[in-house]
């Protein structure tokens, strides 16, 4: 058992050089710049896109090049504009969905971990129940019941993804809740709520942030998958997954599906790299690099 007080000091010293080192990793640089680029694209899409993503003004099925860098689709819409505008759908929705899942999952996990007993059993068994199904299948069931739309797809994915947050937060709350400093706060007369909010949650934030960043990529992938299956975004929204589905119908015209597919690929990759790097910074214990570098 470590001496309380000593550990945080040692960690503090070790962490500073690691922060810089972690962000110098090529993967971190790539992840950060790609993610930042996509977020900028999402914000400035109307300025960047050469034309309206819904306008059917060009000749249909033009190959990439010339006036249409990514070509045009079967309805004569500019694929580049659709891909750029697609960022305005996928990225904010993924942020929203991960935020919601985090809020729901973290709250439930914290409550379960802190109070234990009956509350814990109820929350964690429902989490197990959700875990028992493959995420995409459960999400498909939910959207099929609620009706296909992008809003319902987000809802479905929140339902599918809150348990992982609940599980992580519960575990952390359990371990931190038993540390001496929390016990001390409680002995000094602090309420359970104060102990949870002021002492426990800040210590949980790091790992949860890492999980959330990694989950962003996953969320975009699942959202696109639902739209690909026709359960998410509905036409004529320029959603990427729907774009890939459209491309499948017009296989000879590879550009219709390939560019939205590449967009999904790069965003997911960016958030995964970013998540990995964040983990190195915020959660050194669980990082593989921590072990190899330190010992």
């Amino acid at each position: 058992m470590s001496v309380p007080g000593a550990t945080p000091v040692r960690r503090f010293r070790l962490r500073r050089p690691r922060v810089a080192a972690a962000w110098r990793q090529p993967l971190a640089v790539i992840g950060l710049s790609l993610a930042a680029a996509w977020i900028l694209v999402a914000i400035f899409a109307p300025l960047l896109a050469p034309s309206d993503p819904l306008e059917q003004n060009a000749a249909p099925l033009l190959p990439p090049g010339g006036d249409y860098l990514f070509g045009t689709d079967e309805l004569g819409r500019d694929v580049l504009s659709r891909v750029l505008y697609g960022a305005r759908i996928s990225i904010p929705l993924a942020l929203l969905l991960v935020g919601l899942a985090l809020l729901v999952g973290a709250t439930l996990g914290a409550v379960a971990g802190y109070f234990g007993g009956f509350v814990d059993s109820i929350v964690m068994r429902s989490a197990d129940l959700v875990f028992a199904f493959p995420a995409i299948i459960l999400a498909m069931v939910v959207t099929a019941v609620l009706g296909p739309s992008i809003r319902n797809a987000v809802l479905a994915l929140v339902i599918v993804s809150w348990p992982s947050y609940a599980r992580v937060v519960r575990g952390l709350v359990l371990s931190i809740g038993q540390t001496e400093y929390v016990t001390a706060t409680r002995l000094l007369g602090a309420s359970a709520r104060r102990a949870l909010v002021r002492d426990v949650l800040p210590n949980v934030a790091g790992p949860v942030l890492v999980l959330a960043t990694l989950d962003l990529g996953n969320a975009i992938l699942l959202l696109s998958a639902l739209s690909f299956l026709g359960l998410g975004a509905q036409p004529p929204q320029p959603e990427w997954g729907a774009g890939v589905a459209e491309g499948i119908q017009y296989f000879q015209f590879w550009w219709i599906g390939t560019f939205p597919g590449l967009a999904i690929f790069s965003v997911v990759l960016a958030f995964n790299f970013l998540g990995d790097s964040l983990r190195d910074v915020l959660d050194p214990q669980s990082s593989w690099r921590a072990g190899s570098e330190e010992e």
Partner: protein
Amino acid sequence: MLSRSTPRRVLLVAVALVAAIAVAAAAANSTSNDQAATGTLVIDKSFDLKTADPQRQFEVTGGIVAHVLYDTLLEFRGSDVTTPRPSLATGYRASNGAKTYTFTLRRNVRFSDGTPLTSRDVVFSFRRLINLKGNPSFLLAGVTVSAGGPYTVILRSRTPNPALPAIVANGSLGIVNSKLVEANGGTDAAGADKTDKAESFLNRTSAGSGPYLLKSFNTTSRVELTANPRYTGRRKAKFATVVIRNVLAPAQLLSVQRGTNEISLDLSPDQARPLFGSRNVNVQAISGPNIWFLFANSNSKISSITSNKRFQNAIRYQLDYAGLVRLAGRGSGRAAGVVPSQFLGALADAAAIKQNTTRAKAELAASGLTNPEVELEFPSDFTSSGLSFGVIAQKIQADLGKIGIKVNLAGKPIATSLANYRAGTEQLGLWLWGPDYPDPNDYLVFLPGQLVGLRAGWAAGSDRRLEALGRRAGSTSNPRVRGQLFRQIQVQLNQRGPFFPLFQPGQVVAASKNLTGVVYNATFQIDLATIGSR
């Protein structure tokens, strides 16, 4: 104007058709009728197969199989679907105002086991079809069947039924060997839907008189046929074996490029694009018989906007029909009216509604509606002829948006959207109508108070002139007069109806170059028996 130019066009088309049939027949004959069947023909088809029992099947794949296992009283030849020709029957006589049809059977026809085919088998097959109460049973709704002698069959319809000759050419009305089927659990008695046990037998062994025999049958993988050595009719098998494989369209594209003696039936015009101009493959892209149409609900309870006649006219004249046909792909054609171009009574392309934005704007202004916003429902998860409803819906949305009609797309899974369509609750609906049998009578459903009319909120009594015309056309047996009546109906439908016929999507048949006699037909798709090899 119209009535003067139409007969000449029809005559021209008829001459062309006859010439085409003659050429096709000559080609079929030249590939030697008496040569022994050899080799294997491979058909790639995306299966919608349920059963090999002719009286139970009503699917596309099942129809292709039934067409060569079981002969019918009359048949369509080549690509023609307007004139039923003799097959088991040498001819027929209509009497009693198109209510009674008497068919005379060809003598010396034998089933594949050698049993002679008589009127008993025809009566058994038709009664079995009716009493099985399956998907195709409606074809003989209101019809009673009896034998007038060993080689005479009489069909009596409760109402005048000029479509009956076209109906008896349907594969579901293929004639089975009554003794053999009865011996294996089959029955034609009332209650056959519960007591008939012959389906599993018919899924193992065919019991017909057609050019091919069933060798093996699997609804999910493949069907094998072998030539019928006892066959004596006009359509003698030219291959020893035919294999029909369940293959998805993209894979069909690969295998038809590599194989010989191979035919692919499910490529969309866009998928088939690499094959046009190929050295090994012949590609035909012809307008199929399905009619894609848009409708605006005429029931003011569903929408006060879409039921506005001026608003309907605004849609009618604003749709970019030429663009829609282009979008539907190669081989697609304009649907001039609701009756497909191949059928009796079809409208000439010249009579189709054309885009006229000025008029559309004027109609919209006259409608008294400002910034109308309507919902367009369509099946979001369904494609036909490789074409998705979502794509067409987006085009319609853009077209109507140009004159200020805001269309919200409401694609729904087909189970939901079909239920709404059938309940008549869609404001705008995008659907297709595929023929049940190749006769214009099948299109009277678009009139007020009829099946599809009601789905568009068009109640009986909404257009009495058109309804009276429909009743007359539905009970007239003279083909020339019928054709004229149906054209009149469609001209009026195009002027006043809530339906906007869009296009007939192209149907692609891709076949190895060495094959002969590959002809697409809108009813049975393809006749395997006429296909030979060079």
